[in-house]
């Protein structure tokens, strides 16, 4: 209780003075950091610090309840909320301090300075030297918290109720604001599986030309099941759609060969092995031509 008596004094104890000067400086520095730090996280942390110091000041001023509430609500809840949001938005989202609005910085500085000076001047020439500490007030109901409680539940009871309503509507509002309506039905497991597989190539890629029946770049190699695999052709050609089907190519070659052999031998009839053997050279010719086509 002698603490209360101390508080009754019109000037404060040296201890409080020291505490004020030390912590006050820190608080100001914290505030400055809050507005000067590049990253929102740092600002938040500095602000938290300032708030804690303020809590101490509350206590020092005999507002024990408020001091605690300050620590719990502000530093504990609100600042954490800030940090969460900062994370949502992205911790690394450092906004450049370069000013975009012309003259904004100077105007702001000017206004701030003038405003501060004026406030301080105002306080300065306001006659505030009669101090009736909180002793009586706190003592009336036997303690700060009791005193507050008495006031809140008697004098300010309606305001208190209304704040309750306010809080409720605030929470609802927050939910409404942050709630996102789902537009499409939730995915089934099957869809998820397909999503995982689709577009992907499960087995290993074929080595280019392994099953190649052809050495032209733009002709896809054949998979074991005989289907051409576009993966064997360079992406550029794939995108250009300049892929030729090898099987089709082979048939073309054979047709061309038959024509030529007919011209050369001048006789009809099934083509023998010899001719097949001769096809190699013909193939070669064909290759060259194909390559020309491909490169063209």
């Amino acid at each position, binding site marked *: 209780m002698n603490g209360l008596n101390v508080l009754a004094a019109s000037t404060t104890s040296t201890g409080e003075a020291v505490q004020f000067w030390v912590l006050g400086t820190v608080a100001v520095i914290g505030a400055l950091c809050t507005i000067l730090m590049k990253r929102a996280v740092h600002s938040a942390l500095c602000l938290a610090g300032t708030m804690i110091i303020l809590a101490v000041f509350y206590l020092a001023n005999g507002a024990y309840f408020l001091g605690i509430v300050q620590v719990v609500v502000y530093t504990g809840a609100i600042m954490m909320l800030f940090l969460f949001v900062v994370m949502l938005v992205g911790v690394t989202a450092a906004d450049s301090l370069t000013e975009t*609005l012309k003259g*904004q910085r100077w105007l*702001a500085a000017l*206004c701030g300075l003038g*405003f501060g000076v*004026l*406030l301080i*001047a105002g306080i300065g020439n306001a006659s505030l030297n009669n101090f009736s500490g909180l002793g009586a007030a706190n003592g009336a109901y036997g303690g700060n918290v009791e005193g507050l409680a008495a006031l809140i539940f008697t004098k300010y009871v309606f305001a208190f109720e209304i704040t309750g309503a306010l809080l409720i509507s605030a929470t609802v509002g927050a939910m409404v604001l942050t709630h996102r309506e789902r537009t499409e039905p939730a995915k089934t497991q099957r869809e998820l599986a397909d999503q995982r597989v689709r577009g992907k190539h499960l087995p290993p890629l074929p080595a280019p030309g392994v099953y190649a029946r052809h050495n032209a770049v733009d002709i896809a190699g054949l998979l074991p099941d005989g289907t051409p695999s576009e993966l064997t052709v360079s992406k550029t050609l794939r995108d250009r759609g300049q892929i030729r089907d090898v099987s089709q190519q082979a048939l073309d070659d054979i047709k061309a060969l038959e024509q030529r052999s007919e011209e050369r031998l001048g006789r009809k009839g099934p083509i023998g092995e010899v001719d097949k053997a001769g096809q190699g050279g013909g193939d070669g010719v064909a290759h060259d031509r194909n390559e020309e086509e491909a490169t063209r």
Partner: protein
Amino acid sequence: MENLIALLIAAPLLGAAVLLCGGRRFDRVGHLLGTALAATSFVIGAALFANMLTKSVDDRALHQKLFNWIDVGGFQADIAFQLDQLSITFVLLISGVGTLIHVYSIGYMEHDERRRRFFGYLNLFLAAMLLLVLADNYLLLYFGWEGVGLASYLLIGFWQHKPSAATAAKKAFLVNRVGDIGLSIAIMLMFTTFGTFAFGPVLGSVGETSEGMLTAIGLMLLLAACGKSAQVPLQSWLGDAMEGPTPVSALIHAATMVTAGVYLIVRSGAIFNAAPDAQLVVVIVGAVTLMFGAIVGCAKDDIKKALAGSTMSQIGYMILAAGLGPIGYVFAIMHLVTHGFFKAGLFLGAGSVMHGMNDEVDMRKYGGLRKYMPVTFVTFGLGYLAIIGFPGLSGFFSKDMIIEAAFAKGGTEGWILGSITLLGAAITAFYMTRVMLMTFFGEKRWQPDAEGHLPHPHESPKSMTIPMIILAFGSVFAGGFFSIGDRFLNWLEPVTGWDHGHAPISATTVTAATVVALLLGVSIAWVMYGRKARPVPVVAPRGSVLTRAARRDLLQDDFNHVVLVRGGEHLTRSLVYVDHTLVDGVVNGTAASVGGLSGRLRKLQNGYARSYAVSMFGGTAVLIAATLLMRAV
């Protein structure tokens, strides 16, 4: 009896109303109706005249008040008439000559599909002119004054499809309006001076105001007279007015309307008598116009323009006489009447000649017409003799009186005026002889007209010749009738007053001099135009500088054109520009600047919450500062 006075005016007015508003259904009877009503008013006039003769000299004047026209504060104007010897003289002249010219017009305008309207206008003119001479106050006189101006405007511009006619009409009206300024200012002066502008009170109380005021009034009246009577410097319209049909030229621009100025001055004699300076100016104007008109008349080849010049000059005589004061008033009016006869006759003759010559007006294309249109020749000849003042004919008496009066003015003034009038007489003789010779004598100089067929002159129909004959009769005998036993003098003297003046030389001398002057003029003219040896060229020779100037009305038209017309055009055009750029520009400029300013202010609203916040914050700071200051103070 006096209730008849209104009828004098009402009859032709009714005619005008019926003919102008009646529409086509009157086309066939229009001219007859118009003539009948003109005659009616002449008959009434005659009746009033007779009645007036029966009365004693002192109570001859009649008054009739119809109703109160304007009554505001002290400003009292009545529709009231005054019929005294002076007015009745004019009434008879106007309605008489008017009726004759109506008759003449029946024939002259026969082939014009708008004849009905022509007669309507003529009737309108008669009504207005009668109103002018019958009014008993200056404002009502102004009413008639403007009315005849309107009628003359309508009649000069009767052939509106001719731009020249429309322009001439407009010119006549405008010049007359300039004169009207004078009349209206005179009326205002009378109102502010005498508190009234009725003839009786004003002329009665002339003695009670300053001579300067009277001079001002007199000069203003003179300005009005100049406008209406085509006196220098407002004479320019009369020549162009010949664009109108010839009967109009005869009635309005020779016999009656142009003499209204003389009437005004004689009527206001009391004012002029009391304002010698004004009188002097009147005399000067008269003298100048006399010479001006005579000179112009010598140079014109257009027969009507030549006659117009002579009209100008003759009215110059009258104005001069009127300016002489009591010595001259009577003779001014007398010359006015006789002139009304012979000049109307001359014009009608000219009209008849034109009628026979496919409306050719150039005398150089006439010649030798006496055989072809004898009646015209005779009547025109009598008129000619009358106007040059051939002894025994009316012009001789009246003009001689004026010349005597001019001498009787006395002093050097008298000598100057007298010699001018003599010179004028000589010149008159010259140009009238010229007209006569070029028109009726010499060999034929007829030219094919626009359609290409030569004119075949013929005598005009009865309806045209009879009036000419009657007028010729008047122009022969009127003068003698008037002056034998000073009838006219005794008749008018009670109204206008008369002063014998003191002639430095005897009347006989003057008469002799006059005769000499006229013989001189005639012989010169005969030498120049009459001899077979020296035929008149069809195309006008270049002529001397004076001749060329005279042909152009002594250049005063060019002066008007350069100074007034051109200058006016430039003035108005520049004013239009000023109005658009300056006066309006100021307004639009203000609007534009306001718009620009708001556009700039708009830029402050850049939409960034933070800059708004700055202004809020600054505002708070300012508020705090304010409160602190208030506390400190």
